């Protein structure tokens, strides 16, 4: 599990600085404010705006 519950509590969207949540069965992190989805590649969350996709 690349992101445990405690880490998820302190993790924020690089764009909005608001909380993110696990989506796609733990394969990505999503910000509900800007709708950016940050991929988790090979167990490593990629918290970079340029690498995110926008998914409504």
């Amino acid at each position: 599990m690349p992101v445990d519950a405690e880490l998820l509590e302190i993790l924020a969207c690089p764009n909005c600085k608001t909380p993110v949540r696990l989506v796609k069965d733990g394969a990505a992190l999503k910000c509900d404010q800007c709708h950016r989805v940050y991929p988790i590649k090979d167990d490593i969350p990629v918290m970079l705006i340029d690498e995110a996709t926008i998914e409504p």
Partner: protein
Amino acid sequence: MALFEPEHEKLRPDVNSQALSVIAVENDFVEGVYEKLATVYDVFFGPILHPGRLLALQRMNIQPGTRVLEVGVGTGINSALYPHHCHVTAIDFSAPMLAKARQRVSRKGLHHVTLMEMDAAELTFADGSFDIVYAPYFVNCVSDPLKVVREMQRVCKPGGKIVLLNHFRSTNWFMSRFDRVLTPLTVHVGFKSDLDLPGFLSQTGLQPISIEKVISGLWSLVICRRD
């Protein structure tokens, strides 16, 4: 600044405003350098820089349950040094370096280490998230050291520790000139050799509680307390 010789302070009246290095580098450039270095980093920089890593871990005195953020994890060369009773979050901007770190973390079963791809100048953590924020051999390698350290301060809990293991410009007149001359060359391996420690501390507002020289005095272990 009690940790510096008074004579040294007199030599640096512009400590609050001076440029910290003669060289400016861009993130893309540094990323490119470390992409190339990923496969050989451990061979060249593993053993030679290890005494500093060991001393830093010893001085951090990590207690059970401590949350540590390692900024600039690179190939994960520090990962196995952390006690298993703490929680380590380790970030880097370079995907090839992180791929190496992932192999190491997986091979050694380091379940207490979590890796993330992130820009050190834009940390995506809430304020006051970590007990210790540690940047080993890293601040010389970023385009904006001040911005990175301000982010390290932001995510460190009040009363927590900010730990820098770094080469700073020598206080010796001759060696100081040597560092300045060397920087346009060392920058090609992603490293600025002329970062000025008094200016750096002054401009970041960091309050050091100890400064120790390591590896023949070429590197400094600077431990600061977050107010």
